[in-house]
């Protein structure tokens, strides 16, 4: 099934509109377990997704390792009578903004080089804490995307990615300390030093134990803390689909000041060499930089073709495909603009409070309502302007709309988290903290 135009031609006899999306990818992963090189994996996969509109209804099917077009088309045709109404037309574009997402260095990297980077990182971190057990994954990949539709639209691009992820655990009796961080982008990355420095900082701050009591406390969310606690409910709320359905808490807040005026948030699929970037989305609508929040005011929701048509809006180029699913509106890279406060000054300002580096389970709260509630996997107590040590058995809960309505400060140094969030520290007023007494 290499010839997309042939599939398109075949299916056009059976449906009014059609779109064929093919992605082929090759990934190599070098995995260290407990500081030792454990497994090397290669993965290659090709899948073809077919979306049709027949008698005004959408049919959808995906085939991987499927060599016959008939079966794929038959599956899509079978689903169409039950599918949602097709309210949109595929775009007829075939010219897209130039978004750099391919680094020619990445395909050349050998498994040996990847293994070498992994051991360098482990060696550096273990110099600080020899008893630390590290799981490291060094991943590289290239993929080719090709999309055609029955209105003459066509898009084609190659992308690469390279990522290093380290999760470390330090066990003393029944006490376990988890540290971790990652770096990833479309480019080859050799700077394991930055990653090592961050991990050593975490280990250093967590050396001493501290405890807070059950009460309301101010919290500094580090960029990773922001990503794990505050972003999941926001990412949901800015979906045009959630706004259209009425499940987004922000649904009727367009143009209203909901957040602190120092907060400006973007969804940006055009940033060069970022994991969330691409010339166009998964249905051939050009990528954009979209302001979601401008100085505290809600300025946009994210739309794909179908949702935009239903809402009487234009697609924002946010139709993203997740696995074997049809496109839905979703974020690309989420960027929170930097503010003025230095992290050190935020800490100095704090009489009694917490720094949260990572919450687990935060997204299990009532996301729709903006609630989050999670256990502090890594966080530190602050007393009289000094970081005292690491807290445990501590739960932080809040509501993202209350927390971000009036904040104390926005950090002056944003950093990438998981390659898709570029966020600064956020210093927030009182949140509910519960601990074991």
């Amino acid at each position, binding site marked *: 099934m290499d010839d997309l135009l042939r599939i398109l031609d075949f299916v056009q006899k059976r449906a009014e509109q059609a779109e064929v999306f093919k992605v082929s990818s090759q990934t190599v992963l070098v995995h260290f*377990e*407990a500081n*030792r*090189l*454990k*497994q*090397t*994996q*290669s*993965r*290659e*996969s*090709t899948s073809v997704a077919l979306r049709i509109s027949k008698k005004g209804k959408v049919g*959808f*099917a*995906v*085939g*991987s*390792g499927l060599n016959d077009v008939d*079966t*794929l088309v038959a*599956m899509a045709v079978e*689903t169409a009578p*039950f599918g*949602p109404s097709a309210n949109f037309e595929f775009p007829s574009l075939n010219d897209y903004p130039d978004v750099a997402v391919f680094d020619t260095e990445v395909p050349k990297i050998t498994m040996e080089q990847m*293994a070498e980077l992994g051991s360098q990182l482990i060696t550096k971190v273990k110099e600080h804490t020899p008893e630390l*057990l590290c799981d490291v994954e060094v991943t590289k990949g290239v993929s080719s995307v090709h999309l055609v539709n029955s209105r003459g639209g066509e898009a084609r691009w190659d992308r690469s990615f390279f990522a290093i992820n380290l999760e470390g*655990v330090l*066990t003393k*009796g*029944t*006490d*376990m300390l988890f540290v971790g961080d990652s770096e990833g982008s479309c480019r080859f990355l050799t700077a394991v030093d930055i990653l090592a420095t961050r991990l050593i900082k975490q280990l250093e701050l967590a050396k001493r134990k501290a405890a807070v009591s*059950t009460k309301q406390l101010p919290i500094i969310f580090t960029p990773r803390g922001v990503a794990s606690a505050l972003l999941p409910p926001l990412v949901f709320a800015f979906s045009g689909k959630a706004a259209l*359905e009425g*499940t987004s808490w922000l649904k009727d807040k367009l143009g209203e000041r909901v957040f602190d005026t120092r907060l400006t948030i973007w969804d940006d699929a055009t940033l060069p060499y970022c994991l969330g970037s691409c010339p166009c989305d998964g249905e051939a609508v050009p990528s954009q930089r979209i302001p979601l929040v401008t100085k505290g005011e809600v300025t946009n929701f994210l739309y794909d073709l179908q949702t935009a048509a239903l809402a009487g809006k234009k697609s924002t180029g946010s139709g993203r495909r997740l696995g*074997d*699913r*049809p496109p839905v509106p979703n974020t690309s890279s989420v960027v929170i603009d930097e503010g003025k406060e230095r992290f050190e000054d935020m800490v100095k300002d704090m009489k009694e409070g917490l720094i949260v580096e990572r919450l*687990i*389970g935060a*997204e*299990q*709260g*009532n996301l729709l*309502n903006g*609630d989050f*509630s*999670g*256990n502090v996997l890594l966080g530190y107590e602050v007393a009289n302007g000094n970081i005292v040590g690491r807290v445990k*058995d501590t*739960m932080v*809960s*809040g*509501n993202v709309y209350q927390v971000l309505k009036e904040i104390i400060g926005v950090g002056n140094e944003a950093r990438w988290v998981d390659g898709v969030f570029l966020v600064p520290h956020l210093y927030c007023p009182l949140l*509910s903290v*519960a*601990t*074991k*007494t």
Partner: protein
Amino acid sequence: MRERFAGILSRCNADYVEIRFEQNQTTQISYRGGKLEEVGRTYSSGGNVRALVKGGWGFVCSNSVDKLSSYVDLAIKQAKLTSGEEFALPTTEPVVDMVEAPVNNDAASMPLVKKKELFDEYNDIMLTSPQIQDSRISYRDVKRKVIFANSNGNYVEQNKPDLTLRLTAIARGNGEIQQAGLSLGSVGDFSVIENLHDQVREIAKRAAALLYAPEVKGGEYAVILDPVLAGVFAHEAFGHLSEADFVYQNEPLKQVMVLGKRFGSKNLNIVDDATIPGLRGSYKYDDEGMPASKTYLIHEGVLVGRLHSRETALRMGEKPTGNARAINYLFPPIVRMTNTFIESGGASFEEMLGEIKEGVYVRDWYGGMTSLEMFTFSAGEAYTIRNGKLAGLLRPVVLTGNVFVTLSNIDAIGNDLDMNQGGGCGKGGQFPLPVSNGSPHIRIRHCVIGGR
């Protein structure tokens, strides 16, 4: 297939090689915003090769299996790159088996129109209930055939059908959005998700009631968990710690998880059992071709076992348990749970409740996560307990704690074991793996509940 695999495997220059080939067909239906939003079908076939050379593993997967021989060579090359020590799996008696597992009311062969009719009914019930703004239905059935062969001479063919359904009612009002849901699953049997109309009505009512329910004040409480949530606790809080791949290279953790150590009271028994017929976590052979087993993790409060792959069992000098599983051919098998549960004890729900002056009764599963010793899990429903009686609905709560402390704080175990077939487990990027978990009602003293 068998001759082809055997031919390739016989020529391998490695300590161990296995081939897994799969054919999967999935039907996915979802409703959102009151409408059927997505219906899709997926066909996927592919395979993988895993090779072991001197303690290092190579793994190659692809959906073009015609180049199988070259993938075997690549897997061996990768294993050599990773190798470094003398280590070989013991040879076992070769097993050849074609497992026939007939599916009752096979969902995969049911016409789409029948599925749609049923979901339309459920959706109507939810959306015509007072204050329900929106609903979600997420349905998936999978027909999966797995063929496994290894250099040991094993050859096994198995079918692994699966089905999941999640229904969510979303209420809006009083300046709030709240939701309540229901998760179910089966080994492909469609009748399990039929005739749920009354239960669907209940979740719609509950979502609306939550709009006006007060929030619990964060802090420590005596808590009773219903069978669903206690099952999640057994899975999240303890089950993951029993997975040997977390333990076998971590010396301090090995000391904590040493067999024979007491973790709970004499009436606490926690089991993982892949041999119970008809449960989503069950199978005859795991993805390393090892026979499934029933494993006591905690027996009478004492740690007596853990879950193993062939490698972890050998490295820890314990018996293999057949718990190496992969969600599909794109992933290597890793140590996973199957059907995990707390065995029934002697207490009745009324007895447990009667002894609590102030506490919280938590029901139903919403999610759960663990970082070995620390866990959080969320309840879909919560009620105040005052002076031995249930005293009103609360907003959903999140529970958190340290597993070692919490296990020893379980002070009563009910007599009403029930297995929950909804949901799926995630680990190492592999999600959702079909599992089930269960428990009777249990009571935990001094449990931290998060609130605002």
